[in-house]
């Protein structure tokens, strides 16, 4: 091959390259336009609004860093951040482990795979409001099915969505029930692990657990990382289930407007997005809500970067590269 560094490309070749670029750009245009309109612009506008006083009706007025400064004296914001961090840690771990566990069991089933796979996936298609209300009714103290079942064993059921200590675990249970989408992705990854690797491990004397640990897990680790990132983002954006569980717990699931008690009980379901919505649409302070959204974006972005870098490092280590 001859190096042609510094040589001027022939005019015909340059035109062809430009035409090629235009063709590529043409094919990518719908995606690029969609990205700019529905992600780029809202993102930049949110950052801009975060430096303004904006009541949704009148033009935003620049107010410098006032919105960010107010975050330090807002008692509910601290609570909302703590609640969301709880979900980021607990929900991420629980959802990934749960989906991995269910997928691993389904992958080993000999019969009825199709039916069980469908049954495990179906709840993820339920609308979040309906799924939450179903869980509320099932877990309802004083007469709910779970309460009656625990009563048979002489156990008092928790108050779930009426007890600040149990409301978040209750919502986590809902999120696990509807985690069939992640389960299907992990199941596909498990089924995609080359059979030869299992056979080689078996020849080396590895039992089922060691095969799962040393063959399945490393091979599907990129998919697991996707599951973790997906779960972190889901936890950071948790809204509908928190609103419905809080409203139903306070006895106002069927109420409208400001009679809905967001955050019930004792603000334990007041997640960052719920508080953001409250500030923007119930207190009409979209500038502050935008500042909160900007902070949420920066945190989500940072967490994702850290996780992706970690994955890359692990992949390099698995492949025997530097650092192995």
């Amino acid at each position, binding site marked *: 091959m001859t190096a042609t560094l510094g040589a001027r490309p022939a005019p015909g070749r340059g035109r062809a390259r430009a035409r090629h670029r235009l063709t590529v750009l043409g094919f990518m245009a719908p995606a690029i336009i969609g990205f700019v309109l529905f992600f780029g612009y809202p993102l930049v506008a949110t950052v801009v609004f975060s430096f303004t006083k904006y009541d949704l009706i009148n033009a935003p007025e620049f107010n410098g860093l006032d919105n960010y400064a107010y975050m330090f*004296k807002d008692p509910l914001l601290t609570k909302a951040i703590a609640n969301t961090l709880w979900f980021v840690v607990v929900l991420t771990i629980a959802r990934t482990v749960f989906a991995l566990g269910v997928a691993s069991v389904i992958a080993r089933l000999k019969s009825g795979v199709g039916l069980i796979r469908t049954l495990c996936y179906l709840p993820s298609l339920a609308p979040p409001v309906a799924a939450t209300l179903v869980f509320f009714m099932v877990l309802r103290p004083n007469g709910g099915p779970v309460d009656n079942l625990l009563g048979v064993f002489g156990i008092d059921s928790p108050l779930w969505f009426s007890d600040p200590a149990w409301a978040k675990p209750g919502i986590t249970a809902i999120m696990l029930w509807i985690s069939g989408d992640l389960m299907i992705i992990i199941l596909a990854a498990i089924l995609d692990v080359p059979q030869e690797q299992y056979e080689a491990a078996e020849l080396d004397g590895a039992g089922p657990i060691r095969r799962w640990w040393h063959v399945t897990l490393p091979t599907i680790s990129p998919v697991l990382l996707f599951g973790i990132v997906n779960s972190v983002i889901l936890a950071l954006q948790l809204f509908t289930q928190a609103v419905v569980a809080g409203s139903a717990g306070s006895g106002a699931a*069927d109420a409208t407007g400001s009679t809905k008690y967001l955050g019930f009980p004792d603000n334990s379901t007041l997640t960052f997005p719920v508080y953001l919505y409250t500030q923007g649409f119930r207190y009409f302070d979209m500038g502050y809500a935008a500042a909160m959204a900007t902070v949420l974006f920066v945190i989500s972005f940072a967490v994702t970067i850290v996780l992706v870098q970690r994955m890359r490092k692990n992949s390099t280590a698995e492949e025997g590269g530097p650092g192995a």
Partner: protein
Amino acid sequence: MRKHTRAALLCVAAGMATALTLTACAAGKGGGASSDAAAAPGKDDKLTLTVWSNYSDREYEEVTKALKTFNKKFPNIEIKHEGSQDDDKITAGIRSGNTPDVALSFTTDNIGQFCSSGAFQPLKAYIERDKVDLNQISPAVREYTEYKGNRCAMPMLTDVYAMYYNKDMMSAAGVTAPPKTLDELFEAAKKLTKKAPNGDIEVAGYLPTMGFYANRPTILAPSFGAEWEKDGKSALASSPGFTEMMTFQKKLVDFYGFDALERFRAGLGQEYSADHAFHQGKIAIMMDGEYRTAFLKAQAPQIKFGTAPFPTWKPADYGTAFTTGTIMGIPKGAKNPGAAWELIKHLSFDTDTIVDLSNAIKNVPSTKAAMESPKLEVDEQFKTFIDLAKSDKLKGNPVTPIGDAHIKAVTDFAVSYTSGKVPDLAAGLKEVDKNIDDQIAKSGK
């Protein structure tokens, strides 16, 4: 690398420039909020008025019938009523230019924002032009339909809150008359409460939990003579009424035991369902609006109930009550503001229309004439609410520019205080005052 950085910076700069340009459009489209009165439509003008409300099902049908009565005055105007439209949708409509001509809102907590932001157009010019006598409406109702002297809404019926009591349970417990003072309420609650041998509550005489059903600080405040603000500042800590409200709530919660009460409350039905605790005979006394009379007759006809003014801290205050209700306004950018005002005026002051709608959806009429109308169907239970609505002791919803942030702050504090988490009442109320003032200062209104 440097090339990539430069490209990224250019992208960000372009994005910022675009966003800054577009944010200028973020304030909504269409006509602005004019302080002049638009002309009333002529008899030959063919036009369609769009009305948005949050009504649904049977109530939607009844309100639609009431809207159609406008055609007697203006047969040339077609009315298009769209239900299930909450305040979020009204705000989004104003911002996008898809604005209704008349917006009906259930959320009087938002009137401060509607008036101060111009989301609802000022009505002063219309009222002066048409020489409308606002004294036909009680002062309390006038209070919750304006903000700092800017009237941007009119009432369409009102809700008035009072005490409901289960007559059978009262007589079985030996409570001969509805309580009038807080001490009497406490004693009645004790007598009416039934506990299982293990301490579980089976029936609560009166359920005090703040935030549950109609136990909202705004609704309870008049019974305690509690004042929300003084000299433009939140005044909970300096209001003896709020101290008394919290003390009374805690006394009741301590009687039941916070944990036992929470276990009992967690098993009760939703507020607007047939499982409501009062419908099921699980609570004997409660605070609620006049609309509950219709719910009870439809969903729990077996319950024999009575109504009376809610007991008060000071005997002289007996007969006071809280009122709020549906509000009507002309949103910013409405295409037919002149005709919209005519419709609002009709719904606000046409006695027959108000009476028919009140009879249909069992809300209290908002004008004195309608309350006196012989056509108004008033039974024994509903009469309590009419009497309270006529009283000069009636108190309106406190209006702020921060939605219901102040109500949430007090509700949260009440739960913390009654559960024993916050021991210092005075310091706690001062903290709530500070939070409310900070929030209002942040709004800049």
